[in-house]
């Protein structure tokens, strides 16, 4: 395994993270295609739920119930 990959690479280490979408049409859904850069080690991947830093998202309302504008 590649020992030079840092354990927790920052998302900014691989920019751009997605391929641009060309020839966009109406009435279609588009999801940007992931561009791979540094990956987490297997040990870190398991704790985070993914090997890919840009796909890791731990950010949601844990307490306090509903977002109420």
């Amino acid at each position: 395994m590649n020992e030079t990959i840092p354990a927790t690479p920052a998302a900014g280490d691989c920019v751009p993270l997605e391929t641009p979408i060309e020839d966009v049409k109406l009435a279609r859904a588009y999801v940007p295609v992931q561009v791979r850069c540094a990956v987490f080690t297997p040990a870190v991947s398991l704790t985070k739920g993914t090997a890919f830093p840009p796909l890791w998202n731990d950010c949601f309302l844990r307490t306090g119930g509903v977002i109420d504008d």
Partner: protein
Amino acid sequence: MTEQELLQKIMELDFYIIDLHLYLNTHPEDADAIGMYNDAVLQNRDLRAEYTQKYGMLTSNHCVSAVPWQWIDSPWPWQKAANFELREENV
């Protein structure tokens, strides 16, 4: 390595392999990622062979058994005895 440490290493590699695998399904031309995948699979094979030899069968088709038939041995994966807390210091 204890049984638990070996099983944790296998779980980590298995998961890394799964996530790379799903990525490769939509990125079949990524040669470097295929290299990473293959390296992980080969490393995992060695660990699984060690686990099977020391502690018992992990898959239903690819592991040999001692006598009596080891596949039915406890614990099964949903039982507490088969599980552990992920150790952060290994991470």
